[in-house]
């Protein structure tokens, strides 16, 4: 025991002297579901993280320090998310925590991270509105997805919308965004149905939709069970155009279901595997070389990959892994990296990420086509409603009906 203390002491002294040469690794905690109802969507997140860590370590790590990735699989269980987040922070002493798929898991982890000085990066597209200095969001948010998608759907297909949404915060708040935007465009939501996670039978829902006679559907159903909707709707010849913030690029339903189940599905995304710019092609080549069995590189897998490069950039600019130092870098407004989609920057007010957004549609044979390029869209909504993390840490999630008190 005593001998070990001496050795540790010497090693510590040496590392102080040696500096970068004997540097400890930077520990990155990763919470991603790779089993359970969301496992098939979460696996690419783990793979994206592994690819980024391998590339960064090969190129010399972050400020000469290697990244050590500690991945735990919470299996879609929010209680496990909390348990593992606590473990990673207090026992493994990670420098940064990345991950979480559902908004429920993010909201389970966020209060725990708020009590620490450890940065948390959430890498999914989501319903937006989290104003929290301890968190960086690098996925797309409603002003980047719905604000472009819904006006297009109304102009192209008609004013009557029917929403089917997963019954938890993501589905509820996304449906609220839809109501707001549809109303602004002069349309009507003719029906809304919230579905408990894990439900797989949709005969009644299909009939309810036919009764309401909408022009198009907003499908923000979540998970493998709820995705059975597409197959069952196709079998019943529902045949309506659809829009979503999570289909195609996230759930690759067009690869998982036999055509034409996803025919006329429209989505706006910062990443989808069919993106064919030279940078994207190069990225896909590296990914498939490392993971030849990957069915589809989805947007959250891509975001997980970009997140590590964003973290590297932040730490290297801050010359520190401390949250307060990293936030000083974000406050300059120059926290940008060049990602496969193009340059993405972290917005100082909301700590959300700007993205190059494109609209895609699925044809009868399930080919994905880009139909519109919106260019770079800033995550402006939180800033507009009064969230400014450079001045005040709200630690809250806002929605169109729950705005900050002035």
């Amino acid at each position, binding site marked *: 025991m005593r001998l070990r203390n001496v050795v540790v002491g010497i090693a510590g002294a040496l590392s102080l002297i040696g500096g970068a040469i004997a540097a400890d690794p930077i520990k990155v905690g990763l919470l991603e579901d790779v089993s359970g109802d969301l496992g098939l969507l979460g696996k690419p997140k783990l793979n994206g993280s592994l690819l980024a860590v391998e590339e960064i370590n090969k190129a010399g790590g972050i400020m000469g320090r290697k990244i050590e990735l500690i991945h735990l699989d919470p299996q879609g269980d929010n209680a496990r998310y909390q348990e593992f987040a606590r473990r990673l922070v207090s026992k493994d002493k990670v420098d940064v925590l990345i991950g979480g798929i559902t908004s429920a898991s993010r909201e389970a982890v966020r209060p725990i991270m708020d009590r620490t000085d450890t940065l948390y990066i959430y890498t999914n597209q989501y319903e937006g509105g989290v104003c929290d200095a301890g968190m960086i969001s690098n996925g797309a948010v409603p002003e980047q997805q719905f604000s472009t998608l819904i006006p297009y759907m109304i102009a192209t297909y008609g004013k009557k919308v029917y929403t089917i949404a997963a019954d938890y915060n993501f589905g509820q708040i996304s449906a609220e965004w839809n109501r707001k935007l549809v109303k602004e465009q002069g349309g009507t939501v003719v029906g809304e149905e919230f579905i408990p996670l894990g439900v797989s039978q949709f005969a009644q829902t299909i009939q309810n939709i036919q009764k309401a006679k909408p022009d198009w559907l907003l499908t923000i159903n979540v998970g493998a069970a709820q995705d059975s909707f597409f197959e*069952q709707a*196709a079998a019943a010849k529902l045949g309506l155009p659809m829009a979503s913030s999570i289909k195609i690029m996230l759930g690759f339903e067009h690869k998982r279901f036999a055509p034409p189940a996803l025919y006329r599905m429209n989505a706006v995304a910062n990443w989808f595997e069919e993106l064919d710019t030279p940078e994207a092609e190069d990225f896909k080549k590296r990914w498939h070389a490392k993971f030849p069995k990957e069915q589809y590189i989805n947007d959250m897998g891509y975001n997980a990959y970009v997140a590590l490069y964003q973290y590297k950039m932040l730490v290297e600019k801050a010359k520190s892994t401390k949250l307060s130092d990293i936030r000083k870098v974000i406050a300059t407004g120059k926290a940008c990296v060049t990602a496969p989609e193009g340059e993405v920057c972290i917005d100082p007010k909301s700590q959300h990420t700007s993205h190059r957004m494109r609209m895609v549609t699925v044809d009868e044979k399930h080919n994905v086509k880009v139909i519109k390029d919106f260019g770079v869209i800033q995550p402006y909504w939180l800033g507009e409603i009064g969230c400014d993390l450079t001045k005040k840490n709200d630690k809250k999630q806002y929605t169109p009906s729950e705005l900050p008190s002035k």
Partner: protein
Amino acid sequence: MLAEIFSFLYQFADVFAFLILASAGLAIVFGMMGVINMAHGEFIMCGAYVTVGLVNAGFPLIVAQACATIAAALIGVLVEVAIVRKLYKRPLDSLLATWGLSLIVTQGMLLIFGGSMSGPGTPPGSFTVGDYTFSVYRLILFAAAIGVIGFIYLVFMRTKFGVYARATMQNAPIAQALGVRVGRIYALSFGIGAGLAGLCGALYAPTMTLIPTMGATFIVESFVTVVVGGSNVLLGTTPAGVLLAVIRSGLNAWGGQIIGQIGMLIAVILIIRILPEGISSYVARWLSASEKSKS
């Protein structure tokens, strides 16, 4: 109006088929044999995976479904002989053992086959009534549910095996004393239960996303139906299926899926409170009382 009535009947048939197909196998294993089979969902998953595997290998859907049912039944016999047989007198241990089996199987499938398998797609065919379009395949599912009830009736009420099986479930030592090969009866009954679970998976495979944990989506409905039904498959599970399907499809139509699910679970709590032994004990008592009054 006609379309509305047909739509309601169709929805009822759809929910009824789901409840009966999901619970038939469990009703035999849990209801009759008293084994709480936590791996029930995995037998369903097995049926679905074998079906899709064979369809992808070029077999016609119906052949694949038949093979999947037989495969699940054979695996069921193996599981009975290897694990469940030693635990008949120890219900909690059998619960734990089958739960462990379920975890091993779902994680094993995840490691071997990955996160999901793409399905063959629902067989085409739809028809229109009024404003609504319906899938023909959902009616086939309903017919299959009726067929399963008929099959259980024939096997357990009209064959020698059925008599032996019921005698064994009632009192195994006496049945054995009378020359019934109890071990074989148990293995076969468990095999039939597993086979029916496999059939459920095989029938729903074209309509669902195939993931290793897909059995879980059937589990709540199957246990609920069996618990409400009670120990007698024919007198219990079928009326339980009808009752729960009426409640659920009615509430689904009125207030959407959440209300449907909540309403069904509340109904289950009330039924268990009033009829702790399930519907079948009530029906059995009513039948024997009416027979007494006749004589």
